[in-house]
């Protein structure tokens, strides 16, 4: 089972994770990660996420397929939102289900590391005082994290 979605609206992470194991008795581990919008000490009013329609889905499918090829997974989920997202709201989720926890943990981590560096999304940070609407800079640490899986 593979679920890959790019959407403006929110998602139900618990329901998505539950769907991975519904009706199955061979799954021993589900690892779910949810990325949230934080307020950076009260400075951030919202994030605006731009994406490349079409390519975003394609890249997320590619990343999910790489995880499936690498570990014995019963299922994967990758969902990413775009548009305006306020502090406290969900931005992204990945989940991986497997017979054993090692594969599920590793797959979920790889999914996020690859998604951050390969899926075409760009964040703009809107400050509370309205002074800045700057693009968030890419972090070298994210590239290093993704390179671990190469």
């Amino acid at each position, binding site marked *: 089972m593979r679920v890959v979605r790019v959407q403006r609206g929110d998602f139900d992470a618990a329901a998505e994770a539950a769907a991975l194991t519904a009706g199955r008795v061979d799954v021993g581990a589900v690892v779910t990660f949810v*990325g949230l919008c934080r307020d950076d000490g009260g400075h951030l009013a919202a994030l605006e*996420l*731009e*994406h*490349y329609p*079409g*390519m975003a889905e*394609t*890249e997320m499918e590619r990343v999910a397929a790489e995880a499936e090829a690498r570990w014995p997974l019963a299922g994967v989920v990758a969902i*990413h939102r775009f548009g305006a997202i306020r502090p406290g709201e969900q*931005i*992204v989720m990945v989940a991986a289900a497997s017979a054993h926890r090692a594969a599920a943990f590793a797959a979920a981590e790889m999914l*996020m590391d690859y*998604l*951050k*560096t*390969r*899926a*075409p*999304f*760009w*964040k*703009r940070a809107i400050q509370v005082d309205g002074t800045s609407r700057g*693009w*968030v*800079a*890419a972090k070298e640490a*994210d590239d290093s994290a993704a390179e671990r899986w190469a």
Partner: protein
Amino acid sequence: MYFAWVRERVGKAEEVIDPPASVATVADLIGWLSVRGENYAHAFERVSVIRAAIDRAHVKHDAPLAGAREIAFFPPMTGG
């Protein structure tokens, strides 16, 4: 197609272009666009940070353009 600050600097989200045959690679195209105007020169001033995709797949700057239908330029991605 242009995204994020590349889009803002160029001043448009997409356009149809017809470069000469001498423009064979992504790097050639960046060079060709950069001399079309100050907006392009500004967008592509730091060539090493510019990412490119051909027909919705990531490519390096030495990738050939032959057969490409949709080319996109954008900054390093910051999703997740």
